[in-house]
């Protein structure tokens, strides 16, 4: 439980990796790490198909990431119409890639592929919680 808090429109409430939300509430963006092979998974998952095993540890994504690509979205899907424009982005944290939104405070002209980013917890209206990527 708890996963219903994720994002603005949550489509899945039940998952075995619901502690992701508790970690976010503490300010930590977390991946899972397979206790057998050591593979790191982001987005987090409960199971490793390669071992195959389901003993996972939480792994904190720290430091700065590099912006891989981004887009400023001008037409949102249902539920996001009032958010536009917003910026979707992919960042690389030393091999662990994170997908999310870039800070609203950034103008499109200020955004450059390769710029340093960090992930911060975003507390949203209605008790929802997410993370966003902000300049490091």
């Amino acid at each position, binding site marked *: 439980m708890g*996963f219903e808090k*994720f*994002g*603005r*429109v*949550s*489509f*899945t409430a039940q*998952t075995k990796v619901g502690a992701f939300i508790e970690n976010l509430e503490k300010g930590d963006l977390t991946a899972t790490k397979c206790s057998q092979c050591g593979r790191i998974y*982001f*987005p987090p998952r409960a199971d490793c198909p390669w071992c195959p095993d389901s003993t996972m540890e939480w792994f904190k994504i720290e430091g700065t990431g590099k912006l*891989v*690509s*981004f*887009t*400023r*979205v*001008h*037409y*949102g*899907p*249902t*539920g*996001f119409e009032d*958010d536009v424009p*917003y910026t*979707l982005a*992919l960042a690389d944290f030393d091999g662990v*890639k*994170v*997908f*999310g*939104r870039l800070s609203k405070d950034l103008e*499109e002209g200020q955004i450059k*592929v390769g710029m340093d980013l960090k992930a911060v917890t975003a507390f949203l209206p209605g008790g929802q919680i*997410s993370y966003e990527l902000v300049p490091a």
Partner: protein
Amino acid sequence: MPKDVAVIGVGQSTFFRNYEGSIRELAFEAFREAIKDAGITPADIDASLICSAPEYDKQRSPSGLMAEYLGLNPQPTFAIETVCSSSTTGIRVGYSLIKSGLHDIVLVLGFQKMSEISSADSQERMGRGADIMWESPFGTMMPAYYAMHARAHFERYGSTEKDLALIRVKAAKYGQLNDKAVYRKGLELDQVLSAEPVATPLKRFDCCANADGSSCIILASAERAKEICKKPVWILGLGAATASLTMTGRESLDGLSSARLAAKQAYEMAGVGPADIDVAEVHDCFTIAELMAYENLGFAEPGKGVELIRNGETYLEGKIPVNVDGGLLSKGHPIGATGGSQVRTIVLQLRDEAGAIQVPNAEIGLVHNIGGVGIYGNVIIFGR
């Protein structure tokens, strides 16, 4: 070069913004053309594969309905789905049913009535095309994903918005010649470049339109094809691959790895290379998708795809004509029907029946059909 399975009949409906009929009637439009083209009756068909993205269908399990309406009972029928590449996945399954000896003649029907549900419902479903746990909550949609691929391509290779616009200008030129296309107006470079942004750097005319439509491809074994068909078009090579649904699982964004892998498989099976392809249909749901296809199919080295469009090499008179039927950008993109429409164009080219868009002496053709943002990649090579 294997010649075990042939296309003996092709059909396609006009693609519409809003088809004024039911899905069964829409399917019949392509079916009628294909059956007449093959010169057979429904009783000659051993099995039917019904390809559509089911989230747009009000009818639960439309395969049963289609088999009944098209006179295909009591033969087996079943559904095939890989979203936008459903009907070329149908071709792959049909090929294997025939090659295995289980059936001699298989019908692959693709259809989509995207206007079956409201525009808001349709948008909601498109939002769910991404990973619903981890990416949809950020407000994702198809143009945004392809836009991120475009930006990555620009950054790595120096391609530009103008290069993408040149691709749309080409599509619009040929769309005017295709009486089954949704968008039949010409477009100037400035119009494409000055259109409003959808998801930067993609603008309105970088995106194809949703459409209602159907396609129908009839496949036969070598023995039956030679008996029935004057101009069989052979399936020489098939490739199919997948890539991660999530952006985070992708090694790079400047191409589609599933397309690259599928192309390699298809070329190897057919025993040909990119230079042997006389005409190609690629999945240009967005302009950037066509540019990436040039490179993923080996028509150009990675990063050099822009030279093909800048030099007009993908026009009818060029080195490798691509999407000279207008592509998805002009025809529209009725999800389940799209791959079959691409196959039809290539089959007509290889039969020398493509009319105003005929590539002279086309002997080998290629279809590149992508599901989602490269989650599924299908490449099929045809020969006469």
